[in-house]
């Protein structure tokens, strides 16, 4: 009886879980499927297999420019957010001071602020300051939205880090900076690399803020948005989208592996003697 009931319950649960995953990923699956279809319009049945949409991509100068812009913005935003993230994460995990929690909350807040509001506010501030819109202003915007992610990854790396490791280094004659360089940095290196990858990925895919804050130079998402007006360009967009999707997926996977590696290393330290 109970076995039967359990099977039923499990059956329903499995079906629910299956539908859930389908709902999440089915739309994404269409992208690569239609990107290798010979027909210019995305509809079933598929007419044939081709890689010509992919082959056309490098022959589009506007696309190459956008890709280069995205790369520059992504790398700059990743480095800036990670450096700022290291400083903040270090302070929040290592020191106890009044307002520590509040500061942590404020740093994490952009995660839940409506992005369009953030974009408009940033635009207003930048125009008020008399700055002209450029890739630089896009970088600033991307740093703002990336820091919460960078903080999440980095606090995990810094936490559980046995404080006596740094004391041991000082005890053996090393200066504060030397200790940071020889002990702290190597210990949190995986978390730092993971943070760089996450921030780069976020910047690479980000549309709204880039759309508001860029001048004449387009990043990849802006380029894609522009191409959507032309029906004939759709397969190319799908091909580009597939590549972006694959790149994001790859980067996030590597970042997650590194993050777990870092967490395991620091926690192992504490756990062994507990």
């Amino acid at each position, binding site marked *: 009886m109970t076995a039967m009931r359990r099977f039923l319950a499990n059956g329903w649960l499995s079906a629910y879980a299956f539908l859930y995953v389908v709902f999440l990923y089915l739309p994404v699956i269409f992208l690569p499927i239609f990107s290798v279809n010979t027909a210019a319009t995305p509809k079933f049945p598929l007419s044939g297999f081709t890689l010509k949409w992919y082959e056309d991509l490098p022959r589009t100068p506007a696309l190459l420019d956008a890709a280069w812009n995205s790369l520059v913005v992504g790398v700059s935003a990743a480095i800036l957010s990670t450096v700022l993230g290291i400083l903040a994460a270090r302070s929040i995990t290592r020191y106890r001071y009044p307002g520590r929690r509040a500061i942590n909350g404020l740093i994490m807040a952009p995660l839940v602020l409506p992005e369009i509001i953030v974009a408009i506010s940033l635009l207003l501030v930048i125009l008020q300051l008399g700055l002209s819109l450029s890739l630089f202003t896009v970088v600033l915007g991307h740093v703002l939205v990336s820091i919460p992610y960078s903080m999440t990854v980095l606090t995990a790396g810094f936490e559980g880090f046995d404080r006596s490791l740094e*004391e041991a280094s000082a005890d053996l004659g090393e200066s504060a900076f030397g200790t940071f360089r020889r002990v702290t940095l190597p210990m949190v290196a995986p978390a730092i690399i993971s943070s760089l990858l996450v921030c780069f990925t976020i910047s690479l895919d980000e549309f709204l803020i880039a759309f508001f804050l860029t001048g004449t130079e387009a990043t990849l998402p802006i380029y894609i948005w522009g191409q959507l007006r032309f029906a004939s360009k759709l397969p190319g967009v799908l091909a580009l989208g597939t590549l972006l999707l694959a790149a994001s997926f790859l980067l996030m996977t590597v970042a997650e592996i590194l993050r777990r590696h870092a967490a395991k290393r620091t926690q192992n330290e504490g756990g062994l003697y507990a």
Partner: protein
Amino acid sequence: MPERPRTERTQTERPMIEIKSVTRSYGAFKALDDASLTIKEGEFFSLLGPSGCGKTTLLRMIAGFDNPTSGSISVDGQSMEGIPANRRPTNMVFQSYAIFPHLNVEQNVAYGLKRLKLAGPEEKRRVEEALAQVSLTGLGKRLATELSGGQRQRVALARALVMRPKVLLLDEPLSALDKKLREQMQVELRRLQQAVGITFVLVTHDQYEALAMSDRIAVMFGGRIAQVASPKEIYQRPVNRQVADFLGGMNFVKAEIVEENGASLVVDTLGFGRIKTDKPKAFVRNGGAATLGIRPERLRVLWDNATAKFEVAGKVVERHYFGEITHLIVEIPGLEKPLSVTETNDFGADDIPVGTSIRLAYDPEALVAMAD
């Protein structure tokens, strides 16, 4: 009586660490309250006490990880005020060992030497020497994560010793090891200290550890130093009930002071009669009453018709078997609490039935007066 050889070591009368009225307060709470102490060169010194007694605070202040609120600490005649941990002639073995997990054994041991900019072969020689001192020769390439608890502890020791510090500080170094390994390491640590001749300061809450390894012990309670003396002195002549209680079992006997002069006390007890005993240094007379103490193993069961110069009669009310020894609880007429007696099991103390009337032999010198 055979003569007991006592190994002569590098221990001198020269003070290595001088702690003068050191207080460390956190708000209203005093982690350390007016502690003064002199630790001699080449001495194996232990700070013993329950958790929260201030022993670790004191050790961390010697290392430079914490600073006194008032008072002064000097090492080898040099005041440590304003000198950060990385410029002090002390090295520490941490309770968690704090082995750098991203470095192998050799790199861990050589960590502090890198700052000294030694020539390659010289550095290598010193690392090898330190590893040999802690019996880790050949494990230099191992990663910290591939070591057992005991091996990690040896790495921590080697990493500190290779710096040739004037003082080696040990923060509960054996507490993470299992009993067998801990006892083995106690012997090894003591042997190592005698071999290198460096002043060792050990923090521990384990009285047996302190007794087994130290030249002298400071017993601490609630931020204050209660007694500083050799292990034997601390065990046999505790200054007060708290110290006596912390270092193993003690039978307390109420006494009436009959006579008090310079160095001795004459007291009357109900169970043991009139006793003449040494007056402890810090003895403060509190009316006419005093407390005497006698360790359970200083009472001996008298078999058959054996007699002793000093004996006391009573009745066994409880018996507890512990393998090599038996604890007997013996009621003595006149004493408000029964006496606890430890007897080795070679004569059959484990077979004495509860309810038996027995006589106990004692040495009046084993009855020591102490403050409450």
